[in-house]
Every structure is written in C-alpha cells, then in structure tokens.
C-alpha cells in the first residue's frame, strides 16, 4: 500500500560530511513503549483529590445580546461546587491583548462572553461539580436570556454598510487590512502576452481535528498566587502572554505543564480562554478544576483554520508560459475573535511566490470577523491557503492557455541552481530541487501510462484526471513579521531552549521547551545529544512534555510552525555542546591533561591517545555533585547547561514589508490520480504519490510519518472536511458523523519518495517540517479539473470538493467557466 522510493545516487543533491552515529537513523522511539501500552498520560487521564469538573454553558445563537444569566438553579443542585459568569470575568480580568492595529485592537475578548455572544457555542457561563455528569446536568439548569441579533456568516458581506457589526468597540468588522506590493505589477501587465483573470477562488474552512480534544486541570496555590496549569496547550509561550495580563499576574505565576498530547496540529494554541476560566474557577472555588472539551465543542468553538477568498485575480503571462506575477484581493475570515490573528495576514508572505519565479506580486489583503468560530493556526497556517491559491493559478492558467501542466511548472519553478533564492519580499528559500521532485512524483504516479489509463477509465464510463500539487513548508518563523502588520508590536526573531545535565549517577537528562504531540521529540533530541556526548540514545533521558518550572523555555516555546528540527534541536545541540565541553574540561582536570586531548566516546570521557585513561559519566557526575574537594579553583563546571537557540533574523523592513521571515523551506510535490463518476459526482483517488524534501532527515521514519499524516489530512480537506454554516450561524458539521474524516478504507495507495537538499542555514542541514502545506488539496483540485476537461472544461475554484460540488460543476460548467477569462494582449 505504501512504497518508499530510496533515491539513487543521482537524486541526493548534496552530502556534506559523513556523520557516524545516530543522526539519520530511525532509532526506536522512546515514546512508544508507554503509548502502545495505553500508559500515556493525556490530560483527561489526570486526577486530583477534590477536583471539580467544568462544563461550559454555551450560546445557542451565533449573535445575540446576553440579557441575563441566572445560575441559581444550578447552584442548588447537590454536588455543584460553583459557577462563573461573564459579569465576574469582566471584573476579575482584563480583555486579552490584541495583536492588531486600531481600531481592531479595541475588540474585547474575554474567557466568557461579556454582554454579547459572538458565535454559536461561545461559552457564556461555567459550572463546576463533583462529577462530569453533575456538571453537565447543572449546566442545563443555568438560565440565560438572549436577544438574538442579525448574523453575519459571509466574509464577502462583512464590509457592507448594512452588515451586522460583530464587535461594537472597533465599530467595524475589519481586523486588519493592507496592501502588499512587490515588483511592478503594472509593467508586468503591460509586458504580458496574455492576462488571465479569475474572479474567485475560495479556500474552505476546516481543521485538522486532533483526536484528543483540548483540556486542562488547573490548581491554584493561594499563598503564592501560583497557578499550575496542566493542559495540552501546545504553545505555552503564547498562552502566557495572553493570560498573564488578563489575570493581572506575572508570567511566572502561570506554570504550564504538558505530558502526552493526542495530536494538536495548531488547534491547541488558542485554548487560553478556557484555561483562563479554569484559573478563575480554581481560585474562586479553592479546588483543582478539570476541563475536558467534547468533540462537538471542539468543532463548534475551538478552532478552525482560516477561510480565505481570493477575488479579481489577474495573471500576466508571456506567450511561452512564463508567468510574470499576479494581483488580487484577499479576504480572510478569522471568525468571531482574532486571538492569534492577524498574524495570518503576514505569515502567508513567507511563501509569497509559492515555488515560482514570478516577481511582480500585489495582494490587497483584508481580514474580517464573522459570527463563526474563531480561527487558530491550523496545520499549514496561512501558507497553505496561499500556496493553494498559487497552485490554482498555475493550474488554471495552464488550463486556459492550453499549456502542459508539467512543462509550465518546470518553466516557472525556482531552479535549484538559484538557491538560496531571495523572493520578491526578501524571504530566502534555502535549498531545493523542485523540478527533480516533480519528475520523481510523476514517475511514481505512472505518468507515462496516463493516457492509456484515461482511455481505459473512459471505457468504464469514468473520467480520469491527474493533478500536481506543489507546496512549501516554511519553518522557524521570524516573529518580526508581526511588526509588518503592527509596528507597535515588540516581537521579533524566535528561540527555543533546552537544558541538559549529567546527573549524580551518570544519567544524562534533557528538558525541552517544546510541547510535542506525537513528533517524537524525546527520541530525536536524544539522537542529537548522543552523537555529541559519545553515548547512545538509550543513555539519554528526555523528560516528557513541558514544564515551566524546568526553566527551559522562553517566550516562543512551544511546538508549532514546523520548527523543532531547527529551533528545538538547535537548543539541544547547543546545550549538549556546552555540556560536552565542560565534561572534557572536568575530565582533563582529573586526568591531568589538556582538555583538547579528551574525547567523549563509548559513554566515557577518555584521553584520545590513551583510552585506558577514562572516566565514565557517573564518575564525572559524582565529582561535581558530591565529591568536589580538590578541584582547581578556576574550574567553572556545573555539568548543567542551558542553551537558548536563536535563529539569525533581522527585524524586517516595515516600509517595504521586506525581509527574511522564515529560516528554512521544506518542500513537497504530490501527484494524484482521480476517477470521477460523471453521473454522481462521486470520485475515488486511485493512485497517489508524495515526494518530500526536508533537508537532512534526522529520523527518517518520523519525517515520513509526518508526510503521511499531512497527506491524509490534506486528502480529507480536499474531499470532505469543511466547517459549513447556515445563514443563522449554525455549524452544520459539528461532529464526526457529519464532518467526515478519512478512515483506512478511504486512503489511496501511497507511493512516497524523498530528496535531501540540506539547508545551508542549520547545523545539521535539517529543515523544520511537519505541517506539510496541504499539497494533497492542491493535487486533488488539479486532478478533478483535469478529469473534467472531457466533460465541460470546468475550473475548480473551491478547495473542498465533495461529491455534491463535483456534480454541480458537471451539471453547470458555465457556472465555473464564467469565473475565468483570457485577454489576449498580442
């Protein structure tokens, strides 16, 4: 069902030095032993004596004034410990910090709805009781009186004069707007032989719906004002920045602890409102408070990926198929509250040109609020939406100008000999060979026999189509890009922290600032450290998860943005090298030789030229911890190192919106073969190829697993997954019954291949990866469009194409054809 193609000599782009040891090996995962036995500790597994269970009372209206909240009947129920309402929240907390500029920054965002409900499911009150069932029962007894208000669900109507206003304080639904313009789009238009116009391309709202829902267990130490927040929040740095000012407390008073997390994919970044409510309740009720989100709650309220519509797209093209650039308007729907937004308004520009060489680009970008669930940085965050757009443009232009989709991509791809490549807005693509990856993908999908297969399918009454999806996974972002949106923000650069110590009994212990949710950080960190310390990964113990009290975190700590291989491992490498250096100096002092004569190998610190003179790790640990008399006075060794990895970023140029916004660029090219049943619109993905390049693969199996997972999620997003709303703001897909997530029977055969184009900007040449970039969505859309050539020449213009949409396109080709036009200039 899968087949991983090992590249031949010719396909490996570069090998620097041969590294002995564990980097590049698929060592057994440390996490597995506990997880396969069901011994992982997930947030709902945790119990505390006397804890109360939270249930949130949620608005049934998408937009309504809250007239009154009466918790008295709930409080009468035996076993109910207490409640929290919006009125209390408005007194006890300040609204969350807004990242955007005025007037959007006037939005008042609290952990419970204050005065008004802004989306269906917004929490209005919270009830805490002795058992889950009682909390649920009690929640039904809370009486809330609402005055429904007109609902806004269409992002394209959000700026109309008569549109309902979601937040009164800014008085407008616009969160952020700005013009991005690089190159000279007007002269590109003048130079063009054709101008292709596409009226509308729509990227649907969906999310990666991690199987484990969000949750938290919060304890409050009254004497010290310390909160202990056990949760599966994946970005404690961000949560702390949001929660501390809101709770009017110091950053260190919020201790975040995570253990095992059942997937997150960006959907566990914005759980700070629920955690804030738990903090208030833990303090108020003087007991630990436990919250587990239910599936329906997750779908309705936490969180969706950005929905984005691209309008009035214009693409100047030369006769030979060279695309000079594009211009368009973009409207991004961030739902009822921005929260992590408006960062999505800039983050796409890490991949402004996609994989292509066009230089003249202009986007008039606006982000608006609607009465839908707030968005969060769902896997592929903002780049996926933009890369889908660039792929649609390439594919549609090729389609309209009758150009070969393979040739047109190769003509327009950035070439490997142009790497590192500076994009029109100053980002630097580090390395990659897109043409070669495309060739590999086409080989894997059986491109050579495509027309035969098409004819054979036609005999069975089916339409066969091939689609290509190219995508980038930009990793390690420069938070300075936030200043391009709001010059007042004081964020820039990035970092991650690790500590490493050699303990009394010779054990090497690592703590990370990251918050893994299945990416195998414990394992990969131990590979890196083992190589530096000259031992094996089994000798290295990596503590599970994250804990503020370990003091191995910083403002950007967390796991997101495809950066662990760079920032996390950068921190581990730095810390391990510090420790190694100290170990060598200590051993040298004990053995009476220069530090340069000492090597770390075989679990020992030994003299390179006299291996008998060796100290095992335990000896070094013992000396520093309990047996340090007689050491040289000037020997400054603690065997306890902390390292902060900092990527080499500058603050970008705010005037030109120009600068390097990301350190590494992994890439993926997928090819997909679909068979459409023209009578029903139902279709099957009959074959699939995925080629990825994330530079040096530290742990090949883990990297391949990420490619698989991103592919499966993209296939789901392409074929079924969409958070659809009706005009009253009801979410029509609030659970797994209606929101179909692919299962094992839905998956096509997968042929996978890889390249390793090392990044010149990282220690091991590894690039962050994991998000993927939605290549599957791009490929499926292209395949459907190709299949329909024979049926009406339809244009695929939505990212999600379930059978009903395919059928509608087949019934009414004109409805798609009228979205596109070609102007001949010469």
């Amino acid at each position, binding site marked *: 069902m899968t087949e991983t193609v090992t590249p031949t000599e010719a396909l490996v782009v570069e090998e620097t030095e041969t590294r002995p040891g564990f980097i590049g090996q698929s060592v*057994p995962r440390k996490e597995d032993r506990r*997880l396969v*036995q069901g011994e992982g500790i997930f947030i709902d597994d945790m119990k505390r004596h006397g804890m109360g269970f939270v249930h949130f009372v949620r608005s049934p209206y998408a937009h309504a004034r809250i007239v009154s909240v009466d918790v008295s009947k709930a409080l009468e129920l035996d076993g109910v410990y207490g409640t929290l309402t919006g009125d209390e929240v408005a007194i006890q907390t300040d609204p969350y910090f807004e990242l955007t500029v005025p007037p959007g920054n006037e939005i008042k965002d609290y952990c419970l709805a204050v005065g008004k409900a802004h989306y269906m499911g917004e929490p209005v009150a919270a009830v805490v009781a002795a058992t889950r069932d009682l909390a649920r029962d009690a929640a039904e007894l809370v009486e809330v009186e609402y005055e429904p208000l007109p609902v806004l669900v269409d992002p394209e109507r959000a700026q109309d004069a008569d549109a309902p206003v979601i937040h009164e304080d800014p008085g407008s639904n616009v969160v952020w707007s700005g013009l991005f313009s690089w190159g000279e789009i007007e002269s590109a238009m003048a130079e063009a032989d054709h101008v292709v116009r596409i009226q509308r391309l729509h990227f649907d709202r969906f999310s990666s719906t991690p*199987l484990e829902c969000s949750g938290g267990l919060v304890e409050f130490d009254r004497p010290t004002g310390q909160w202990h927040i056990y949760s599966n929040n994946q970005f404690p740095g961000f949560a702390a920045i949001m929660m501390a000012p809101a709770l009017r407390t110091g950053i260190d008073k919020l201790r975040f602890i995570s253990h095992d*997390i059942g997937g997150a994919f960006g959907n566990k970044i914005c759980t700070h409102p629920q955690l804030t409510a738990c903090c208030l309740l833990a303090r108020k009720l003087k007991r630990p408070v436990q919250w587990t989100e239910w599936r329906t709650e997750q779908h309705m309220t936490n969180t969706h990926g950005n929905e984005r519509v691209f309008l009035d797209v214009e693409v100047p093209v030369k006769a030979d198929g060279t695309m000079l650039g594009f211009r368009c308007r973009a409207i991004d729907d961030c739902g009822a509250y921005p929260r992590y937004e408006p960062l999505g308004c800039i983050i796409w520009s890490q991949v402004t040109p996609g994989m292509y060489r066009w230089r003249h680009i202009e986007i008039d970008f606006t982000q608006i609020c609607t009465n839908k669930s707030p968005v969060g940085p769902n896997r592929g965050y903002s780049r996926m939406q933009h890369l889908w757009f660039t792929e649609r443009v390439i594919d549609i232009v090729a389609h309209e100008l009758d150009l070969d989709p393979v040739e047109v991509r190769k003509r327009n791809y950035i070439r490997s000999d142009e790497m590192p490549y500076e994009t029109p807005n100053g980002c630097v693509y580090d390395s990659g060979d897109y043409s070669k990856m495309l060739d590999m993908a086409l080989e894997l999908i059986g491109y050579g026999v495509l027309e035969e297969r098409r004819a054979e399918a036609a005999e069975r009454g089916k339409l066969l189509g091939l689609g290509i999806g190219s995508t980038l996974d930009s990793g390690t972002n420069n938070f300075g890009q936030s200043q391009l949106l709001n010059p007042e923000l004081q964020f820039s650069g990035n970092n991650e922290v690790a500590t490493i110590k050699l303990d009394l009994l010779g054990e090497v212990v690592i703590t990370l600032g990251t918050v893994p949710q*299945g990416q195998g950080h414990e394992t990969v960190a131990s590979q890196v450290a083992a190589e530096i310390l000259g031992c094996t990964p089994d000798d290295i113990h990596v503590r599970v998860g994250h804990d503020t009290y370990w003091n191995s975190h910083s403002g950007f700590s967390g796991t997101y943005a495809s950066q662990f291989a760079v920032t996390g491992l950068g921190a581990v490498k730095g810390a391990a090298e510090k420790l190694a250096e100290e170990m060598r100096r200590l051993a040298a002092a004990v053995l009476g030789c220069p530090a340069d004569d000492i090597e770390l190998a075989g679990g020992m610190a030994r003299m390179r030229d006299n291996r008998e003179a060796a100290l095992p790790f335990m000896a070094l640990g013992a000396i520093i911890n309990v047996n340090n008399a007689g050491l040289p006075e000037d020997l400054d060794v603690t065997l306890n190192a902390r390292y902060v990895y900092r990527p080499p970023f500058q603050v970008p140029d705010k005037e030109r919106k120009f600068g390097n916004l990301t350190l590494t660029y992994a890439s993926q090219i997928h090819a997909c073969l679909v068979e459409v049943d023209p009578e029903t619109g139902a279709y099957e993905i009959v074959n699939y190829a995925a080629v990825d390049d994330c530079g040096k693969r530290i742990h090949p199996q883990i990297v391949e697993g990420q490619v698989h*997972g991103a592919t499966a999620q993209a296939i789901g997003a392409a074929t079924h997954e969409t958070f659809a709303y009706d005009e009253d703001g009801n979410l029509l897909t609030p659970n797994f019954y209606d929101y179909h997530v692919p299962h*094992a*029977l839905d998956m096509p055969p*997968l042929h996978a291949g890889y390249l390793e184009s090392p990044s010149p900007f990282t220690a091991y040449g590894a690039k962050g990866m994991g998000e993927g970039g939605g290549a599957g969505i791009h490929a499926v859309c292209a395949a459907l469009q190709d299949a329909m050539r024979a049926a009406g020449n339809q244009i695929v213009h939505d990212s999600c194409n379930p059978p009903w949409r395919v059928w509608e396109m087949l019934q009414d080709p004109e409805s798609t054809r009228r979205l596109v036009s070609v102007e001949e200039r010469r």
Partner: protein
Amino acid sequence: MDPVTGKTIAVNVNGDQYEREVEARQLLVHFLRDDLELTGTHIGCDTGNCGACTVIYDGTAIKSCMLLAIQADGARIDTVEGLASDGELHPLQRAFSETHALQCGYCTPGMLMSAKHLLDNNPEPTQHEVRRALQGNICRCTGYWNIVEAVLAASKGEA
C-alpha cells in the same frame, strides 16, 4: 427485573475481577477510565465514530462509548492494558512501534484492540481486510498506511 437507577456490577477486565456500583447512565468507557482508572482506553468523539474507545467485550470488538456499564455486568472485557504480559509486549504492540504506526498514540489503544480482534478471528488477513477492520478507528496523525503495514507484519510474525 424492575427498573433501577444503579446497580453493583461484576466485571472481569484483563483477567482481574472487579465489583463496583454504577449509575445506569454511566457509559462503559467512563467506568473503565474513571472508576477502574484504566485510562488506556480513550475518548475522541461524542457520536460513536472515532473508535478510540474500542475494547474487546466478550470476545468481540465494540466501541465502549455506546455500551452502558450496567449492561456489562458479568462480562469479560479486554483493554489495551491487558495486551502485554509479564512486561513482554504483544506482537502487535511491537509491530506498531517498529513500523512507526503511532505518533501521538491517542488512537493507538483502540487500533490495537481492533487489530487484535481481527487477528484473533482472521490470522492471515489481506491488506483490504485489515483496512476494513480498522474502518471504525480514526487516526489523524499517520494516514493509516503504517498502521496497516504493522498489522500485516504482526500477522506474518514479522514483529
């Protein structure tokens, strides 16, 4: 029997006998997780779709979120905690690890129990049969390809 709001039930879980009082409304999955503190069985949805709660109940794989604990009086239940014996991992557990058939591990207990049920009844399944057997277990991390390989490897004694 006349209707009751609760009852003391006796269940055998992984070979251990338990007697507990349960409310009629309590789901088996909550009984396992909260009362018996066997938290290996997970909850991933609220409509019986995801299969994270799969256990083997009197020899058949079922979703424990759609059975009431009170119905399980007298039953034999096998959960993920009973797969390994004397510290030795079950071949399926070994195969999952070797094939990287788990990332976050949240769907894994349910997957293992569905897979065990399959191999107990069909020791040499085809790839298609494995995929059908796992249709009721959602995974968001792996895309299933490695999971199917792992079950096939275990069935061939390759783990």
